[in-house]
């Protein structure tokens, strides 16, 4: 193991690292006490607001039915089944809309819970919404069947053939089942990502085919009812959010910034810096550490979206915001292998920035950055810009060898400039202990997170690295008294 410790006192007036577009003057010595605490309170408030909106939207969907006098119609077992079916359908559709909103990459949601947690909620809602929709279909078939004196199968056939738009609803149900089944992680591992992705696009077809019967067959949404307007508004708002945030905004950003690859340089074996030049990059200030979805418009590459974080704060120096962006990419799979051979001049489309791995997540004055492998690179960008007083920041970098601490020279330079403590934690992992994130030697010596950062309980902890390793860091931090809302974790293997 090698541990390198930099003194907390900042060196002054060092020039930027050669080969870097620029290292902007660090906003050193910003001691606006309470700024982060305030920001944190506001973010928690927004999170609570989102929780309230999500739950009340479910409640509202049921209230639609209640306000229609739904309970008074429940007078027989058949009506009970039908009512249960209607309620399940309303709640299920509401959850589906929530799921869509969670993946719409809406800035408000992104700034509040972050992209990966939004996806996590999205995944959590998958099964409940499917069960509700299945229950919707079955209860309705049973309820109507009982009222008609038919078994549920015959009733379903009757609904299919007799009620307009109902066959679409059956198609929709089949699509929903296909989407959720293929999305389950186990299944996802067996199919290539692209297949899973295309199946996921079927969600839109599933939602689209489910809409007609809601408005034509559902008595609740009959023409002229306020319920119809509410439901229309909710559906249209969701569709608009998707269209705007996932299609319009990326197109606008792509045309605004007009990015082209300017340079691809090797950092370490299999790891390259990709630099891009573009315009109006001043608008992306503060995006360092956050990720974009990149599409390199080269033959065979353009269709493949790559999520990568910026490894440096965007640098803008021209009169029209001309400047450079930089990402650091490791050759991880088929897609990223080709990136190593990217030719300068390649046009780049971008969506973003996304994620909460930025100053916006700060809640404390002290900050700790913990990274491993390629996960070090977004920390590099964050270290560049996030405000802290000298001595208030600690950087912990983990790798098997010194060569795996990518961008280590730049980070060292930044730490010197800004007065951050830096530890290099290298060496083989402790094979005998699967719960540690530290090198074997450090574990044997009894080290843990507070050994490096005694004041960690009062700091924001940014963690970026492989999932298992990051999980161990989080557990260590929690054991040291760090509260969940102080931990900012970006999954790097998705």
């Amino acid at each position: 193991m090698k541990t390198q410790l930099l003194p907390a006192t900042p060196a002054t007036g060092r020039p930027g690292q050669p080969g870097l577009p620029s290292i902007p003057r660090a906003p050193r010595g910003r001691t606006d006490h309470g700024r982060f605490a305030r920001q944190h309170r506001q973010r928690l408030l927004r999170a609570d607001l989102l929780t309230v909106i999500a739950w009340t939207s479910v409640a509202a969907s049921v209230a639609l039915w209640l306000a229609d006098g739904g309970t008074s119609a429940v007078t027989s077992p058949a009506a009970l089944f039908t009512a249960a079916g209607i309620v399940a359908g309303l709640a299920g559709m509401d959850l589906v809309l929530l799921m869509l909103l969670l993946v719409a990459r809406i800035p408000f949601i992104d700034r509040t819970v972050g992209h990966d947690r939004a996806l996590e909620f999205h995944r959590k809602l998958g099964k409940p919404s499917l069960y509700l929709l299945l229950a919707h279909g079955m209860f309705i078939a049973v309820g109507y069947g009982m009222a008609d004196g038919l078994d549920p199968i015959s009733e379903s056939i009757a609904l299919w053939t007799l009620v307009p738009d109902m066959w679409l609803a059956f198609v929709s149900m089949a699509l929903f089942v296909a989407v959720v089944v293929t999305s389950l992680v186990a299944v996802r591992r067996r199919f290539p990502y692209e297949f899973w992705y295309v199946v996921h696009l079927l969600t839109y077809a599933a939602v689209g085919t489910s809409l007609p019967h809601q408005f034509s067959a559902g008595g609740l949404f009959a023409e002229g009812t306020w319920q119809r307007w509410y439901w229309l508004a909710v559906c249209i708002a969701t569709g608009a959010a998707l269209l705007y945030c996932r299609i319009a905004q990326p197109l606008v950003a792509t045309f605004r910034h007009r990015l082209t690859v300017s340079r691809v340089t090797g950092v370490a074996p299999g790891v390259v810096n990709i630099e891009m030049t573009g315009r109006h990059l001043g608008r992306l200030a503060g995006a360092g550490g956050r990720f974009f979805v990149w599409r390199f418009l080269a033959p065979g590459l353009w269709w493949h979206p790559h999520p990568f974080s910026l490894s440096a704060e965007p640098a803008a120096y021209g009169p029209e915001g001309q400047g450079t962006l930089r990402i650091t990419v490791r050759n991880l799979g088929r897609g990223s292998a080709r990136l190593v051979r990217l030719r300068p001049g390649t046009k780049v489309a971008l969506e973003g920035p996304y994620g909460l791995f930025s100053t916006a997540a700060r809640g404390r004055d002290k900050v700790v950055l913990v990274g491993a492998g390629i996960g070090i690179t977004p920390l590099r960008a964050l270290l560049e810009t996030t405000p802290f007083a000298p001595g208030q920041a600690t950087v912990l970098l983990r790798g098997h060898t010194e060569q795996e601490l990518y961008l280590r020279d730049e980070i060292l330079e930044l730490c010197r400039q800004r007065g951050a403590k830096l530890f290099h934690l290298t060496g083989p992992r402790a094979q005998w202990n699967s719960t540690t994130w530290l090198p074997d030697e450090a574990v044997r010596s009894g080290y843990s997170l507070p050994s490096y950062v005694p004041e960690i309980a009062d700091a924001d902890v940014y963690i970026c690295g492989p999932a298992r390793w990051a999980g161990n860091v989080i557990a260590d931090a929690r054991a040291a008294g760090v509260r969940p809302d102080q931990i900012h974790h970006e999954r790097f293997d998705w």
Partner: protein
Amino acid sequence: MKARGALSAAVASAGILLAGWQAGTQVAGVSTTNNGSTTAAGTSGAGTSGGGASASGSAGSSGSSDSSGSSGSAGSSGTSGSSGGASTAGTFKGSVVQTRFGAVQVQITVSAGKISEVTALQLTDDDRKSIQISNRAAPLLRTEVLSAQSAAVKTVSGATVTSNAYLSSLQAAIDAANL
């Protein structure tokens, strides 16, 4: 903090559900008001027919099934002047109730201490002349409705009976007996 979010979400959701439920009962409430008006429009026993109980109280109080109590309340303008519960015969008019169909007054006829007839008088706005409402539908108890002996029924009317439902219907049994 998570608890705060969960709590406010729970409170807000409960509030919305309650509001929806309240609105739902008001939808039903509009129809019970109707029920009340039709109650006033011509019969006794309104208070016993379930759903309309609360709203029909005002309009239908005089038509309540308890004969002594009703004659007491309706006796304010009683023609025979007996306001006590011991009244044995006479015609009584209830108080005028405003409904969306206009002012309605219930008239009951009591003989031998029992209500023998209930009629509704509608007071039109222009001349306040009483006109009897003849054919308005009014609440009926199941025991009051014109009944039919199943054996004597020659045919059965029901909401659209499909071919499938027919097989298990009474009409099928009647047809089978006559085939």
